[in-house]
């Protein structure tokens, strides 16, 4: 029961570990991708931004300078030849002449006729998109019309001004100049659309290049993450295996980078761990073997002594009076202490069998009520124990081990709680629940976690005749080997309660071990009182 729950917990935490490690790896991968992406984006955007801006200026300035130069030339060639007060028709002709040679701009000439009214002539007179004065922004017109003071640094009264405007989403260059000496004012309008198109396609290309750089960066990040994360992942798996107790886990080391160094460190750590664990278990094994051998060795003289003390005991019982009254108590002491020594050695051997994992179940189908009755009857406890169990509750278990558990629990209850001890049997699903309840003072809270510890004595002052100190520990081991458990607690009504839980059928535990040989049954400790 306890084992199962512990196992479940292990499995759960292992599963959780796997999930969280997966998340961690993903997030590191993600971080790498993001960082690479950001680097690539910054580099690409700044590079293409600068390239675009430089290009744009170069292209626009060249187109603009060429157009303005042409305009200036044409103004000098045609506009300056016009009369001071030209007619609209004259202006129009001049404007057309200015744009005749395949110039890619429109020209608008503005002048005052003899009456002082403004006349205009445009090279582009189409109704919809004709180049009119409205197309020229107001500030530009003012700047063009403004007469500059002639200084040493400025030799001309009027300058050529230009401005870029956007009309209906199309970029235009508008320029204006006044013919010095009261000539007409000329404006030019040049569409910058071809340049804008070039620049647009440049921007697109740069955008695509940036996008490709990002994709490349992501791929590179993936690859880099792979080279980093794969060893890290392997390391994680190896560490997990190590944690599971597979101490021979080693990593294959390749390369000389930091990760290889980490793998080497891991291998060294695993090696030293394996060695330490091996040393420790060897020491443990040695001391265990020592106890086993020791109790084994003790048994040979004990067998001889036991056989002989019985002869002495019978001599006492025979009441022949042949024994010296001084000798009699000595003989009784030898007999009873030999019995205790037998119990102790027997318990020690039982414990070493559990420690070495050689304890086996010998299963049989038994009636639980009959078994408990027999157990308390064999120890002459019938008057001290109240049994609440229905006959007919069958279980498949090891009768000898059940007897050991019951004898220890009931014996312990009688010792500390006094009679009557109540034993009740209940069925709970697939389990059997046997409760041993006494009327004593209960178990102190600080003692409760240790009641199943070996040789744990609740108080140092307790007389040494209280038992071997192994009884409850052996009872618990016997419950565990059945796949069950014992829980010690205090009853709210007072007194200690030991709840023994056993599966009704322990055979699945044996099925895994076809070669089981079973433990030898025989004279359990405490059966000596059964004679007669």
């Amino acid at each position: 029961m306890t084992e199962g729950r512990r196992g479940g917990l292990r499995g759960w935490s292992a599963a959780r570990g796997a999930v969280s490690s997966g998340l961690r790896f993903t997030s590191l991968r993600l971080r790498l991708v993001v960082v690479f992406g950001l680097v690539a984006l910054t580099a690409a955007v700044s590079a293409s931004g600068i390239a675009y801006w430089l290009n744009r200026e170069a292209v626009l300035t060249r187109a603009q300078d060429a157009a303005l130069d042409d305009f200036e030339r044409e103004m000098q060639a045609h506009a300056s030849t016009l009369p001071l007060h030209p007619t609209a028709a004259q202006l129009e002709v001049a404007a057309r002449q200015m744009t005749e040679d395949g110039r890619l701009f429109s020209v608008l000439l503005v002048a005052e006729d003899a009456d002082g009214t403004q006349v205009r002539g445009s090279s582009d007179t189409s109704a919809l998109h004709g180049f009119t004065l409205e197309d020229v922004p107001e500030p530009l017109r003012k700047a063009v019309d403004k007469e500059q003071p002639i200084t040493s640094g400025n030799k001309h009264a009027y300058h050529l001004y230009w401005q870029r405007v956007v009309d209906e989403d199309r970029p235009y260059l508008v320029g204006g100049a006044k013919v010095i000496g009261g000539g007409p004012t000329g404006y030019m309008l040049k569409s910058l659309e071809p340049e804008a198109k070039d620049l647009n396609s440049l921007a697109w290309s740069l955008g695509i290049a940036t996008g490709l750089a990002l994709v490349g960066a992501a791929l590179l990040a993936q690859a880099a993450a792979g080279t980093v994360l794969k060893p890290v992942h392997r390391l994680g798996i190896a560490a997990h295996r190590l944690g599971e107790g597979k101490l021979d886990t080693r990593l294959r080391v390749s390369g000389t980078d930091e990760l290889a160094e980490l793998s080497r460190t891991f291998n060294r750590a695993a090696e030293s761990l394996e060695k330490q664990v091996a040393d420790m278990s060897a020491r443990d094994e040695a001391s265990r073997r020592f106890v086993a051998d020791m109790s084994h060795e003790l048994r040979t003289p004990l067998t001889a002594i036991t056989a002989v003390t019985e002869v002495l005991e019978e001599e006492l019982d025979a009441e022949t009076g042949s024994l010296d009254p001084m000798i009699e108590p000595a003989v009784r002491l030898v007999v009873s202490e030999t019995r205790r020594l037998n119990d102790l050695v027997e318990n020690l051997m039982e414990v070493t069998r559990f420690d070495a994992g050689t304890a086996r179940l010998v299963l049989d189908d038994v009636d639980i009520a009959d078994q408990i009755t027999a157990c308390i009857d064999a120890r002459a406890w019938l008057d001290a124990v109240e049994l609440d169990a229905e006959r007919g509750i069958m279980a498949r278990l090891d009768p000898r081990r059940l007897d050991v558990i019951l004898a220890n629990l009931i014996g312990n209850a009688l010792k500390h709680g006094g009679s009557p001890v109540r034993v009740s049997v209940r069925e709970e699903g697939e389990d059997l629940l046997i409760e041993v309840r006494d009327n004593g003072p209960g178990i102190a809270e600080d003692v409760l976690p240790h009641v199943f510890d070996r040789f744990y004595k609740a108080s140092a002052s307790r007389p040494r005749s209280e038992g071997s100190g192994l009884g409850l520990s052996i009872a618990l081991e016997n419950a565990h080997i059945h796949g069950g458990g014992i829980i010690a607690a205090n009853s709210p009504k007072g007194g200690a309660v030991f709840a023994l839980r056993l599966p009704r059928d322990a055979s699945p535990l044996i099925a895994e071990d076809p070669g089981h040989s079973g433990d030898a049954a025989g004279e359990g400790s405490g059966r000596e009182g059964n004679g007669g």
Partner: protein
Amino acid sequence: MRRHGMGQNEPVPSLLLIEDDDAIRTALELSLTRQGHRVATAASGEDGLKLLREQRPDLIVLDVMLPGIDGFEVCRRIRRTDQLPIILLTARSDDIDVVVGLESGADDYVVKPVQGRVLDARIRAVLRRGEREANDSATFGNVVIDRAAMTVTKNGEDLQLTPTELRLLLELSRRPGQALSRQQLLRLVWEHDYLGDSRLVDACVQRLRAKVEDVPSSPTLIRTVRGVGYRLDAPQ
């Protein structure tokens, strides 16, 4: 179960104790002699086998751990020719001992450190198995159990059964068709209390089947009843 002294007209059982440890051998000899047995002792398996041929004891108490040929081998050699009862002295930590010992043909076992009166009770229980109790006979197929002569014949031929095997067959044949639990059989045949080792029953049934059944691996007489025990089928 404890019996002090023997009845005047009861023959004194003669035992052969094979045990290599001097102290144990001396102590057990002392104790068993006090319980009213005639005890011969041997310190090794070889000596024991020699003594067996010379003295013909009623029962052998045999230590498992012996120098030279071990207790199991002694047991197997005795069983080749003899059906006399054997009780093994085993060390409990060696669980495999019990199984191997029972497979080699031992009738019962006791665990060291053994108490003289427990050993005595086992010895008497084993010896009682050969005692006659009824005067009838029963037939199960080609097997005839003659309770008067304490013999079992199969197809007219005498079967060599140990007293324990014979007693087991008798107890089963007394309740034909009725399943007996291992614990019941332990009480009836071995006179063990509620903590008897069910492996004794299983091992003895195996040996009995080997002698009684036509095909021991698919028994038709001594059937296993799952979750209960064994049953002797009434003749068809």
